[in-house]
């Protein structure tokens, strides 16, 4: 057993009774069982098929603090640049995993946009109905999170409600704890015909390394509409394992966009379970990373019912000695006739030292389905480059512009214009091109 695993076990014994929700016997039992499974299993290694291309060892070697303190010294000025400043939003801000009420704007009026900690106490039945129902037991990071997580975002949108403005969820890490191992959890419940837009970000604003093991469970009821955007542009000493699990009922439409521009090691486990007919599952993303960075997207769409649509488009641009992984699994169960599943992963390597491992994985047990998948790893189109150069744009700038065009293609489904603009700007900055967006 690794030192970190041992630390986690002993920390659990110390903290268990003090965690939020420890009066809820159901939650307590869930946590204990999860911790038992973690004790059995430990952390995955590259010998595990699911972790074949991504080696956690270097980031798990660090001596992290597990039971964290918040940090009162963080002011709005410190975090402003991580929020969509030109847009009115609900805000849930966590510092070292602890909720910061003075930086947040929550509500209980028409809908609940508050903390997971509050919900653990306030809504024990809801917690009983939903907690752990989307994220699968038996995967190390989910189990570990189930055992420890006692705060995060709680969003519950009642039937037929449309949230009037987007929700921003910000998880910050400071130097207060030294190297920090943070575990938070979102529970997002969108009832029948309700609608919500969420922008989420994890950000290390200090100089110490940190590791975040994060779980988000999303429940989209009949005809619900959810847009969930993950902006990952963290510091080079920050690592993140994000486990996002989405359960969809009939007619619901869920989009999860993942935009990864930073972090030392980022692993996104994104799972969709299409549990009703006529659902739409959209997942897309842009990854642009450079020296010393690894980004691993592991996705699953599980088509369990007929007549559903899924669309998956991931674009990757790799510089320096960066390493990208894409593993996209599409499961079509026997019952799921007339499934229409599209998957595409396109990558551009801008350096000879950059590397991508891409693996589509289709398991189809129904006979009347339309499933397409493709992946490309390549360079830029010569014809298009000549076109740009013939207009007076020098080679380097033309390459930047083309790469930008390649990436921004995956932003088509972003419904918040301010966010789209922000993402385009980040992409342009990353590629060193100068474009004006105020048109």
């Amino acid at each position, binding site marked *: 057993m690794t030192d970190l695993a041992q630390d986690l076990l002993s920390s659990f014994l110390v903290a268990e009774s003090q965690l939020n929700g420890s009066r809820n016997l159901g939650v307590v039992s869930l946590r204990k069982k999860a911790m038992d499974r973690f004790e059995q299993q430990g952390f995955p290694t590259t010998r595990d098929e699911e972790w074949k291309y991504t080696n956690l060892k270097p980031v798990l070697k660090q001596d992290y603090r597990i039971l964290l303190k918040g940090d009162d010294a963080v002011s709005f000025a410190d975090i402003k640049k991580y929020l969509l400043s030109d847009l009115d939003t609900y805000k849930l801000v966590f510092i070292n995993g602890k909720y910061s009420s003075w930086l947040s704007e929550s509500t209980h009026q028409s809908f609940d946009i508050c903390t997971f900690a509050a919900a653990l106490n306030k809504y024990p039945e809801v917690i009983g109905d939903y907690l752990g129902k989307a994220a699968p037991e038996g995967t190390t990071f989910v189990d570990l999170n189930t055992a420890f997580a006692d705060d995060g975002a709680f969003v519950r949108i009642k039937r037929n409600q449309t949230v009037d403005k987007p929700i921003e969820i910000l998880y910050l890490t400071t130097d207060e704890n030294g190297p920090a191992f943070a575990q938070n959890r979102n529970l997002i419940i969108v009832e029948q015909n309700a609608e919500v837009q969420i922008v989420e970000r994890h950000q290390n604003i200090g100089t110490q390394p940190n590791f975040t093991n994060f779980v988000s469970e999303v429940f989209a009821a009949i005809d619900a509409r959810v847009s969930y955007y993950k902006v990952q542009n963290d510091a080079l000493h920050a690592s993140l394992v994000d486990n996002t699990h989405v359960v969809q009922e009939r007619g619901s439409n869920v989009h999860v966009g993942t935009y990864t521009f930073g972090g030392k090691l980022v692993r996104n486990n994104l799972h969709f379970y299409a549990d009703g007919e006529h659902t739409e599952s959209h997942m897309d993303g842009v990854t642009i990373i450079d020296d010393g960075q690894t980004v691993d997207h592991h996705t699953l769409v599980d088509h369990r019912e007929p007549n559903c649509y899924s669309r998956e488009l991931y674009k990757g641009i790799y510089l320096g000695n960066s390493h990208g992984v894409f593993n996209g699994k599409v499961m079509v169960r026997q019952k799921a006739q007339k499934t229409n599943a599209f998957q595409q992963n396109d990558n551009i390597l801008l350096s000879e030292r950059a590397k991508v491992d891409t693996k589509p994985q289709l398991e189809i047990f129904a006979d009347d389905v339309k499933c397409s998948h493709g992946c490309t790893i390549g360079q830029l*189109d*010569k*014809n*298009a480059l*000549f*076109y*740009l*150069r*013939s*207009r*007076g*744009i*020098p*080679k380097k*700038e*033309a390459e930047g*512009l*083309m790469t*930008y*065009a*390649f*990436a*921004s*293609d995956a*932003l088509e489904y972003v419904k918040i214009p301010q966010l789209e603009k922000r993402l*385009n700007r980040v992409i342009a900055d990353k590629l060193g091109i*100068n*474009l*004006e967006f105020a*048109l």
Partner: protein
Amino acid sequence: MLKIKDLKAQIEDNQILKGINLEINAGEVHAIMGPNGSGKSTLSSVIAGREDYEVTDGAIDFDGEDLLDLDPEERAHKGIFLSFQYPVEIPGVTVSNFIKTAINESRKGRGQEPMEAREMLAKMREKSALLEMDKSYLSRSLNEGFSGGEKKRNEIFQMAMLEPKLAILDETDSGLDIDALRIVANGVNKLRSKDNAVVVITHYQRLLDYIKPDYVHVLYQGKIVKSGGPELAHELEERGYDWIKAENA
């Protein structure tokens, strides 16, 4: 302005241009006609600097400078413009962002300051009106989802914005209906002056009814086999290319 001397070019060991001689002066319009596969598009690509083609012999002199030493972007900075037969789609980059980048990079290449934003905007408005383009064009992704006619109009819009000394229109009439053809030709005519020159590469006489050439050249099997005035285009329209082929068999 442009002097092409005994130009020979190949692509992957396939000799396409077999000794082209052509001289174009400021204020002139030249039409280059010829059957498919005669080397028309290769000639325009070689002048613009496409790297797929290897020039094996000859020279291209532009305003006293050897063009063949220059990169495509440097040729553009000197005032050469090629309207593409198949303009490339660039999703995610708007027409206005693209043209701004092109103009300011060209100015930079010539040692000039970037164009003032207000001047740029006024110019975009003026030139898009000239080509009867709706304002919404400017905020669309470059050529993405454009019809054939819109793409060609957009090429001439770029030409109008960049104000080249030498504009080469490669099959600009292909895929255009009669209204679009009139708009495009009108745009080109408005841009003509005693200081610039236009080369119209076309298969058909049709476009030359609108853009009147001073000289017409027939390209066949990699060589200019006949040159004349506007009447040559009419003769080709009537008689087709078979007599040219027969004469050069």
